[in-house]
């Protein structure tokens, strides 16, 4: 068996509005569209993902929040109906997904060996969170690639941002080790919105895009600054500014998916590709890609 590897990673935010706007058969609610630029950004990301030919998708979601340690979905098949608790008018989605339990167990064990509290979720009636489902639908609506689902431990909120980031850094390294040993081609998905300042009222027609714009100019400026640094491949600066970004833009990246993914990829100093940016009830959402395999091939060609 050859060594497994992380072929790429995406920032893949999960506003349920994007699924609602697309009107897939799995979702009960119907729309007239909306949030097209973000949905088209996902279309581009879907094409990239297709070319990456991954064996497995790993997704870290803020909406499976766990108090005691980092948890991993550990049931081979999960299905049900996911209703968003906040946007139940928009998102009532029938999901059916396959879990790569073997890789999930390996990640769980590696992380435990590195000192983190971890746990496998073995309850077959478990309802997968809407963040995980939205991200997976938007990046791969065919649902034909097994997944590893990882919870967001509450440490950035319960302890401090720095302690949270430290745990995510460790979890990222553990994830990489497990993938390398697995022999599989893996793609990582950080299910995070950037600036999280949002409006407190929903338009009568939720997809009325004449009402959609950044809620906060400060939040918008932060997002642009951070995206520009990512496009330059300057992740050192991104991580140096991370706590400030979290604080001033109320960024959802605080919950850990984003630092987990960067750590797992080894903070690659390669330009990230922005597929698109848009707001959802005022929050900032970017669909971004780090294509590690392409970057490797480019380096090899230069050498």
């Amino acid at each position, binding site marked *: 068996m050859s060594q497994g590897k992380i072929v790429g990673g995406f920032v893949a935010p999960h506003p349920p509005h994007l699924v609602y706007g697309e009107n897939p058969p799995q979702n009960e609610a119907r729309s007239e569209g909306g949030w097209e630029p973000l949905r088209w950004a996902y279309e581009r990301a879907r094409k990239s993902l297709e070319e990456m030919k991954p064996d497995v998708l790993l997704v870290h979601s803020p909406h499976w929040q766990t108090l*005691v340690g980092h948890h991993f979905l550990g049931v081979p098949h999960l299905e049900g109906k996911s209703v968003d608790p*906040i946007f139940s008018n928009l998102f009532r989605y029938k999901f059916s997904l396959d879990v790569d339990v073997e890789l999930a167990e390996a990640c769980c064990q590696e992380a435990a060996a590195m000192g983190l509290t971890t746990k496998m979720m073995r309850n077959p009636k478990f309802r997968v969170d809407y963040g995980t489902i939205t991200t997976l639908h938007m990046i791969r609506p065919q649902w034909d690639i097994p997944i590893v689902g990882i919870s967001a431990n*509450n440490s950035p909120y319960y302890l401090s941002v720095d302690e949270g980031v430290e745990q995510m850094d460790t979890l990222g390294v553990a994830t990489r080790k497990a993938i390398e040993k697995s022999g599989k081609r893996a793609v990582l998905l950080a299910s995070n919105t950037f600036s999280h300042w949002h409006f*407190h009222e*929903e338009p009568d027609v939720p997809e009325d895009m004449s009402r959609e714009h950044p809620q906060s100019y400060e939040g918008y400026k932060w997002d642009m600054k951070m995206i520009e640094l990512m496009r330059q491949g300057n992740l050192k600066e991104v991580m140096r500014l991370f706590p400030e970004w979290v604080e001033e833009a109320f960024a959802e990246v605080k919950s850990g998916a984003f630092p987990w993914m960067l750590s797992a990829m080894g903070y690659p100093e390669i330009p990230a590709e922005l597929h698109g940016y848009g707001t959802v009830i005022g929050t900032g959402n970017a669909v971004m890609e780090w294509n590690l395999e392409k970057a490797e091939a480019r380096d090899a060609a230069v050498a």
Partner: protein
Amino acid sequence: MTVVSAFLVPGSPLPYLRQDNPPWQPLAAGYEKVRDALQASKPDALLIYSTQWFAVLDQLWQARPHLTGEHVDENWYEYGDLTIDLRSDTDLVDACIAGCADIGIRAKGVNYDHFPVDTGTIVANNFVNPGGKIPLVIAANNLYHGPGETEKLAAMAVEQADKQGKRLAVLAIGGLSAAYFDEEIDIADDRIRHDADDAANRQLLDALANGDRRSASEALGRFNEGTKADMGMKHLSWLFGATGDFKGARVHAYGPTYGAGAAVVEFNL
């Protein structure tokens, strides 16, 4: 009198799913006392506020006439599944939604099959209202509402019940001190995570037991200043808003839920 009984109860599923675990047994036993007192008060409806049902945009109210199914808690899934059997008093829910407009709060009902009802509501209903015989009015915890708005909402709900000539029982679902153990523990050794939290919890419970609404509100202010509490104890604000004044309370149980504080309290109205 519209409000005929009022209780503070924990929203953690642990005392329900492991009633035999010694540190959690008193909470489960306390819940049984609440069930008896609640049934004896013969309410027409049960007004519920749980810290675990978050709303962000509007004030949400559960409008589904009957919700059934099974619920698995995202944290405590290994302890077992929870049966959902909730009936809404839809007339009163509709009146509450309409009543929100009068107090300047945007509101809407949620009426969806498979709606993710929070663990606290399910646990409390299963403990005190088995079979879901008493219809419910369930309000969400809007994260942007402070104690003032929360009290106003509860008072409005009581006013609507009064207009419909209904007897109302009030259930405030949530904990006390919020600090928990973030590592695996032997559940047989569960205790309040910090001694200072334990002392603060006991002080607050004393104030509820021996005070009235004014002195209890003051004690609640002190508690919130010194302790990281469950959602700023907005569930108690809800209860105060619903009951108006009260004459002390009976603390049926106090104990830990994985390090966090929890109590079962019956208020004397």
